[in-house]
């Protein structure tokens, strides 16, 4: 359990650094402010973005701990495939995996669409950081 917690903390720091130092997100993320949940079956992560920077990431938030605007939910196996350097077909994005695999897009999808450019880039950073499940 302690090892898992440490792994989650490591991932949070890597994902934060990858985001905050990403040239694309920093060039275009001036208004990239929103909060979303990554539900990876075994664990979930609530990411809060502000002005293109990671403001906070909560691990396994409790039922009433905080709020988010949209959520991505999929099995842990699907998330592991998202995190591969070159994902196999249908695991190469949120559109492909929601059309053809078990990814569910939930919540206020307008917020996702409003931030689609930066979110798409940030999601692909998982190929560098790996996923914490």
């Amino acid at each position, binding site marked *: 359990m302690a090892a898992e917690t440490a792994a989650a903390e490591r991932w949070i720091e890597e994902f934060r650094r990858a985001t905050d130092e990403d040239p694309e997100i920093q060039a275009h993320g001036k208004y990239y402010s929103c909060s979303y949940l990554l539900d990876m079956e075994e664990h979930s992560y609530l990411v809060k973005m502000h002005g293109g920077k990671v403001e906070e990431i909560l691990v396994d938030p409790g039922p009433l701990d905080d709020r988010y605007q949209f959520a991505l939910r999929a099995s842990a196996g699907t998330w592991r495939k998202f995190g591969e350097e070159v994902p196999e077909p*249908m695991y*190469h994005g949120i*559109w*492909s995996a929601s059309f053809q695999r078990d990814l569910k897009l939930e919540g206020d999808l307008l917020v996702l*669409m*409003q931030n*689609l*450019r930066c979110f*798409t880039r940030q999601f692909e950073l998982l*190929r560098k950081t790996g996923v914490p499940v």
Partner: protein
Amino acid sequence: MAQFSPVTGRYVTIDVLGDECKVFFLENGEGQPLVCQHTAGCHNHQWRDLLEDEEITSRYRVIAYDLARHGKSDPPRNKEWWKEEYRLTADYYTAFIVAFCDALELEEPIFMGSSFGGNVALQLALRHPDRFKAVIPVEAAEYSPGFFLDWWQHPQANAAQVCASGVWDLMAPQSPEKDRWATWFYYTQGSEAFRGDLYFYSVDHDLRGKLDQIDGEKCPVIMLTGDYDYLTTPEDSKRTADQIRGGEFIEMEGIGHFPMSENYPLFKRYLQQALRRIEERTGARAG
């Protein structure tokens, strides 16, 4: 020393079911006409590398047009188009392509299109098997629901970015980054047409139960689909080709829904296979 491309651009005005359409097209090469249709909400720059590929243009006259409302082809000039919702239909789309080929006096052109251009290639094979030597439907299927969405034009989102990043996953992650970004860039330019194009792609185009009416012996149908295409999967295209008399399907590995634009060198290998099959089956050498 200035570097001029051998590709030239021209306009031709055609009548499409009463619409006056001034059509912009790029072309290069000599020999067998090869008419190329871009994907929904995009324009003819998707064919930029094919147009400058001497190995192809030495034997084929490659022509890539912009459909009306795309790229440099304006909406119909004789109509108050701004008072209507744009919804492309199979009737209009096929009439446009035949009128364009007639205007250029093309004899037995091969028609190739990707995505909604691939679906219309199937429509052409069904409706006009005498007008085309063969068709190459790329990323096509008999039916492709699910993409006629309001998100493409939602007033509270940036339509240019929604369209461009919304189709990002249609490309394979290993396709060259600069070519994926060029394709992304083209997609920021076409949001007003994209949704209406997808009316054809996902709604009006429905050849389920009609594929046996396509004579793929008379007009060979050689289908190409990439394995990273989540909208029209290789299984969808194979199922379609299997129902067409004389239909053929070639799966493309490591490429997605915009193959000619996202990774031309890889696409070219499969295109050459398709062109060879057409030569073998029609008994005619190009060029």
